[in-house]
């Protein structure tokens, strides 16, 4: 039987190697494989009006578009230009080539929650896991925090343990810094850092000792997992100061967190949200509210994409080349304005995909003259009267394909393979 102890120097040496990424980090390929891709979801919960940014339907008489706005084009992309929304123009100028817009995706409901479930899980049960956690679960062993939800929806399904909600309470940072579970024991000094470091090292060696004496495969596997978790915990402790965990709910704060998690290779999936239900859900004063929101949303998006473009990737040249960004709202708005200059719920909308594996530079799908979803050929992504209107489950199947998973996991959806490189 091995000595349960391990020299502290040897242990710290091995931890340092892990921390430096020299042991675990593979050589960078030019293109990350689907299984290596990370995902960032950006949700606009409340129901956005596609005509305000992504869908310039100005030529459709039955659809009300904002006065003062006009269609703009660049290459095969078309979007809605408005002088108050320079961020939208900047986005298409800078990242249009990597971006694809899917128009006419249809959720068979006009309720926020139901549409959200359909868009993010493919059904209405609320118990099915969302696309993000499915992707995270497929690579859970490789990431310390497989899915991080900064803000926005989560449907963990059976994967609750993979999801870390950051919110604005800073619980993860508190945990890592030792504050989260430090309250309640009055007058007891916190163990010295030296003592804790020594103890951490002993726990790591005890873990290896247990592994050596494991009784059979199942116990050995659990001890293996524990040992790697101990190493992962050390990794988290080491990088806690390198992550901007954030103390508010601003989209820019969330973006910074996502960039740090990706830079440090801590997560496969990060969920962000520009949640302003009172204004996205624009039953009154639609164009002003939607316009302000879209400008703010695209500002945040530019911050995210600029950051990803500047970051070296772990498995590709740039982080942008190994990351898929999904920007979505659970529903659209009605084609026409109501009596209060608002637009009401409409289960047809547009979704924006950017980054690795996405056939960018163009849009897919479309709208009928009355703003229903048009049919398309999923294999080519081209309009096709014999094709089908995309639904939330199809978005999921497409994302699972992008992430190297079997899209057949989504029984009611099929990947729109024409959107994929």
């Amino acid at each position, binding site marked *: 039987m091995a000595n349960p102890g391990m020299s502290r120097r040897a242990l710290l040496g091995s931890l340092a190697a892990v921390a430096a990424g020299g042991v675990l980090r593979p050589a960078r390929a030019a293109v990350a494989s689907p299984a290596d891709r990370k995902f960032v979801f950006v949700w606009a919960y409340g129901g956005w009006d596609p005509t305000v940014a992504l869908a310039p339907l100005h030529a459709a008489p039955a659809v009300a578009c904002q006065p003062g706005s006009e269609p703009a084009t660049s290459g095969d992309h078309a979007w809605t230009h408005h002088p108050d929304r320079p961020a939208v123009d900047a986005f298409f100028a800078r990242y249009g080539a990597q971006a694809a817009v899917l128009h006419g995706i249809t959720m068979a409901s006009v309720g926020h929650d139901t549409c959200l479930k359909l868009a993010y899980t493919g059904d209405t049960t609320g118990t099915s896991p969302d696309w993000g956690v499915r992707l995270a679960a497929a690579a859970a062993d490789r990431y310390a925090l497989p899915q991080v939800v900064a803000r926005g929806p989560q449907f963990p399904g059976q994967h609750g343990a993979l999801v870390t909600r950051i919110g604005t309470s800073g619980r993860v940072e508190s945990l890592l810094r030792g504050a989260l579970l430090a309250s309640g024991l009055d007058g007891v000094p916190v163990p010295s850092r030296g003592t804790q470091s020594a103890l951490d090292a002993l726990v790591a060696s005890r873990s290896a000792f247990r592994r050596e004496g494991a*009784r059979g495969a199942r116990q050995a596997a659990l001890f293996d997992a524990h040992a790697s978790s101990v190493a992962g915990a050390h990794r988290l402790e080491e990088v806690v100061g390198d992550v901007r965990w954030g103390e508010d709910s601003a989209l820019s704060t969330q973006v910074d967190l996502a960039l740090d998690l990706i830079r440090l290779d801590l997560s496969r999936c990060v969920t962000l949200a520009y949640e302003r239900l*009172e204004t996205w859900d624009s*039953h*009154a004063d639609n164009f002003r509210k939607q316009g302000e929101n879209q400008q703010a949303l695209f500002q945040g998006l530019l911050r995210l994409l600029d950051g990803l473009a500047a970051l070296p990737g772990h498995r590709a040249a740039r982080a942008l080349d190994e990351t898929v960004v999904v920007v979505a709202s659970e529903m659209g708005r009605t084609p026409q304005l109501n009596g*209060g200059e*608002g637009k009401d719920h409409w289960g047809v909308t547009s979704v924006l995909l950017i980054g690795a594996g996405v056939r960018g530079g163009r849009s897919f799908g479309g709208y009928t003259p009355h703003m229903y979803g048009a049919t398309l050929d999923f294999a080519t992504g081209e309009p096709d009267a014999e094709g089908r209107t995309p639904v939330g489950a199809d978005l999921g199947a497409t994302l699972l394909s992008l992430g190297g998973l079997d899209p057949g996991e989504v029984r009611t959806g099929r990947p729109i393979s024409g959107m994929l490189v």
Partner: protein
Amino acid sequence: MLSVLAVLACHAAPDAGPEPVATPWHYEEDPSAVVPLSGTELAGAPDAIMATLTGIDPHDVYDAWTEIGDAFDAECPVRGDHNGQPLFEGDCTAASGAAFYGYQLVNRIFGFWVEFPGIDGFQHEYSWMTGNSRAELADGRVVTFGGDALWSSRQDGDGYEARTLYLYGNFAWERPTEAPAWMDARLEVELHLEAADLPDGTRAVAWNGGVTGLSGVVTAFRMEDLALRDARVDDVVSPACTLEPTGALSFLGRDGRWYAVVFDEICDGCTRVTGAGVEQTVCADWSPVLGWGDSPWER
């Protein structure tokens, strides 16, 4: 290692021993435990339903909101705006000690004119409350607003008056002094009422929906186009009859069984009640339903 072997040697032989035989599974309950309603109970059902229908006054919902208003302040609940309507929300405690949880939209508009194509315009008054809130006052008063309460009246220039009630949800008012019976009983209400007074003095009423959570012989009932009228008010109604309505009515007995009240074309108030294997003729005078004062919910 010896100890390990000892445990396995003892327990690793699931094929050993006599072959188990599956015992058939039967589960039965005594059907006589459910006693259908008696003839007397069935006979009293229409009156119980009428009493419930005429006892629900949506003003009580607004009165409850008004009564508790003094206990709250500008900090709690927070007053905001939702598409132009006053919105109250918060999980908070006011200086008085009154607590408010949830949100509530309250909108009352009186005496405005609405322009419709082809109609010169008519006066419209309506009150609408919607939300999901609970207010707990320091003196023990508790009000629960859950759902929608909308009631309106409109008059055109020719003397036609129409009133609408849409009450959907649960509204409860607990207070040391006597509360309106229907709110005190914590009923679950899903009522849609249309009532009309015509210039010639005749009137008509039509109900849809139902009420649940009742205690007594009738624990719930539902109506589909249950209409009573003392004159022809439009082109599609059956002959006027104040004794017996048209439409569909069913009720849930305290025995857990549904009973259908089958109205016929004979205007005598007598109907067949069927369900749970019984059938009985029940007679009732429905005309009190039309006997309202200013509105069907004000008597």
